[in-house]
Every structure is written in C-alpha cells, then in structure tokens.
C-alpha cells in the first residue's frame, strides 16, 4: 500500500517535468525558457530523492545537495546576463 502510493507520487512528478518542458518548447521569449528550466530543476531535485528512496541508497541524496546549490548559481548568472551582462 505504502509503496503503491509512493510510486504514484513519483509518476506524477515525472508528468510535471514533462509539462514544464512543453513550456520550454513553446516559450516565446528566452526568459520564459529560463523560468521553465528553473521549475524543471526544482522538480528534478524531488525526483532524485524519489530515486534514492526507490533504489535504497542514502548516498544519492548528496547529488541533490550539489544540484540545489549549482543550479542557483546558474539561474542567477542567466538573469544577470539578461539584465546587463556578466
């Protein structure tokens, strides 16, 4: 029972990453695509935790820690480029 509910939650998160990517395809300006990339990053952090729980290794959580910091630096760099250049 617990496992089935948990796997349904993972499938819904996978569908969410697909929807965010459709906005990246459609987006009229580059800023829309950056917003879609930001949302995809946050959803994929959740998906990494889901994979770590499904495959039963604690060590995979460290990847989510690294990703949470690095993606922030990348998004801020793109925002500064959009505004006036790095």
């Amino acid at each position: 029972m617990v496992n089935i509910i948990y796997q349904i939650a993972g499938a819904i998160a996978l569908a969410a990453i697909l929807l965010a990517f459709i906005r990246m395809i459609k987006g009229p300006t580059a800023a829309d695509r950056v917003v879609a990339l930001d949302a995809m990053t946050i959803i994929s952090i959740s998906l990494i935790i889901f994979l770590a729980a499904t495959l039963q290794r604690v060590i995979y959580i460290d990847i989510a820690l690294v990703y949470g910091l690095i993606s922030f630096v990348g998004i801020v760099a793109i925002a500064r480029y959009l505004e006036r250049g790095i």
Partner: protein
Amino acid sequence: MTTIIIAVLGAIMIAAAVLAIVQKSLLSAVIAAGAISLLASLLYIVLAAPDVAMTEAAIGSGLTTIVFLFALNKIRKEDKHG
C-alpha cells in the same frame, strides 16, 4: 519502474537536443543544452553511477552554461560598440 523513467527522460532529452539545434536565438540554444545535461545527470543515477551524476550536475549543467554565457557576453558587447 526504471524503464518508464528512462523512456520519458530519453524522449525529453531528444526533444531538447532538436530544440537546441533548430533554435534561432543563441541564448535559448544554450538553455536547452543545459536542460540536456540536467536530464543526463538524472539518467546517471538510474545507471548506478552517482559520482558521474555529481560531476555532470556541477560541470555539465552549471559551469558549461556559465562559460557559454561569458562568450555570448563578449560577442554582444562587441556588437554594441561596433
């Protein structure tokens, strides 16, 4: 379960690669290349290689995008002056 994850993420990766090639705007192409690296680091976790996933997340998705943005910035600045 892992087969479904690989199929969905692979389809998104192929679509992002085609988007990065056919896109006119250079910034949008760089963003799509960053999305490819993000999804590749998810696939490395499924392939049981967490060290590669960590490196790909830090270097492929973070640092490569910033290096591309530096180059685009140089080109745009030259454009403004000349």
